[in-house]
């Protein structure tokens, strides 16, 4: 199988990190203490936990990304065979992309592409900072 080298690369990557950490473990000192092992927060006691519900913008961006990533997935087989399929396939794909572009225009217009929505603005009326 032509994928065997790929597997070997994966194993090699893991092995490399493992070997480096083992060597470091053997050579480096290991003297933990409670103060050293506190979380870094600029030299002061950490306040609150970072493990909380994070900004929702991230969620929206990932949703949009997923849609486009799936689209790109469809583009690859089409790209490989475009010359044989000819203009008909191009028109097909152009329609497909056009539909997605309408979607992009929609989220763009709603302001969902802005990383931070201006405070207090409701959906649909958002403008860029």
């Amino acid at each position, binding site marked *: 199988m032509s994928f065997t080298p790929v597997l070997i690369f994966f194993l090699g990557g893991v092995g490399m990190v493992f070997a480096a950490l083992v060597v470091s473990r053997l050579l480096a000192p290991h003297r933990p203490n409670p103060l050293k092992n506190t979380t870094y*927060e*600029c*030299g*002061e006691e*950490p*306040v*609150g936990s*970072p493990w*909380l*519900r*994070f*900004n*929702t*913008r991230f*969620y*929206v961006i990932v949703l949009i990304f997923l849609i486009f990533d799936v689209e790109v997935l469809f583009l690859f087989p089409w790209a490989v065979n475009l010359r044989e399929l000819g203009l008909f396939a191009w028109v097909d794909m152009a329609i497909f992309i056009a539909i997605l572009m309408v979607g992009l225009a929609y989220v763009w217009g709603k302001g969902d592409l802005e*990383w*931070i929505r201006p*405070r207090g603005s*409701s*959906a*649909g009326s958002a403008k860029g900072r």
Partner: protein
Amino acid sequence: MSITTEHRELILPQAETMLLGMGPSHPAMHGIIRLNLALDGERVADATIDIGFLHRGFEKMVERHTWNQAIIYTDRLNYVSAMINNVGYCLAVERLLGVETPPRCVYLRVIMSELSRVMDHLTCIAAQIMETGAMTVFLYCMKAREWIYEVVEMCCGARVTTNWTRVGGLMADVPADFPDAVRQRIPELRFVISEIDKLVTRNRIFIDRYRNVGVMPRDEAISRGFTGPCLRASGVPFDVRRDQPYLNYDEFDFEIPVGTNGDVYDRYLVRMFEMEQSLRIVEQALDKLPEGPVSVEDKSITLPDKKDVYGNIEGLINQFKLIMNGHGIKPPPGEVYQAVEAPNGELGFYIISTGEASPYKCRCRPPCLPLTAAMPRMIIGEMVADIIPIFGSINMIGGELDG
């Protein structure tokens, strides 16, 4: 059916607020301060500021020392432009004493104040831009600052903590090659400033990062007690050098740059223009630099020459009378407020004398205190990344802020 705001909140749960302490041990919080932030995602929802990490008790120390000994503590106020602090303090004490320094001293004080201003602005711009990712500008600025430090070293042998002025004059006259050394550096400084200008001022990324960030409107800037480049960036043409002239600034031809927006970009531009104006003042002062003594010829103020101290009894007694505990300079009872235009704004010394050998009270008005106090106001509503240029633009100096 359109999705209303309420629906959206049902679909997308609201993010929680994250509490984050920025500083004291943080690369951008040099100075040192701590910002307590409440973050809503990438936006700053609320902020408070903790100061006092560099408190040394400046005012108390001054009270415990003689009038001349206090000068060394003024170095450590704004350690980037120490000579302006020296000058400011000495001007205040001289006003209490009612003495005028000789013209050569006045000109030299002007030259070194303006060079210090260039130094301070270079440092501020360097740090501010480095923190937004352009490290190269930082090193260009440091290179130029180094040339000024060489001049400072010529004057007093020290580089950062200069302790250069004395009540009634200067520590010593400058060496003979001083004017040429300064003249030679001015074109070099101009070249570096133009290099920075080319690299940064019209860079699109830089403008995007700095425009409309940390905006302080004109009226609010006035009511918050802003002075210096931050006030001028908000559109108020106030400069102590012109509005309450001290030394002999009224003799020089210089312009006061004024911004329009009061944002970080305008503060950067104001500083860039001011450096050029300072160099112009230095050039004019060098042309007019008179010969003569650098200290007042008053034996109750100025220390005698070392050759007199070691050579004759009058000199020795004079030295004794100025140095011995409880003796020395004794300004008449009274109080005085003297302001100078420091790189960050109005640096004022309010001094009360009771006729003793040390000040009864010395209060320093640090120019960056009102600016730092406005930090929360400027960063709330902005993004985390904007804190850095805003903080850089107010050029907070811990030594001066915490006193």
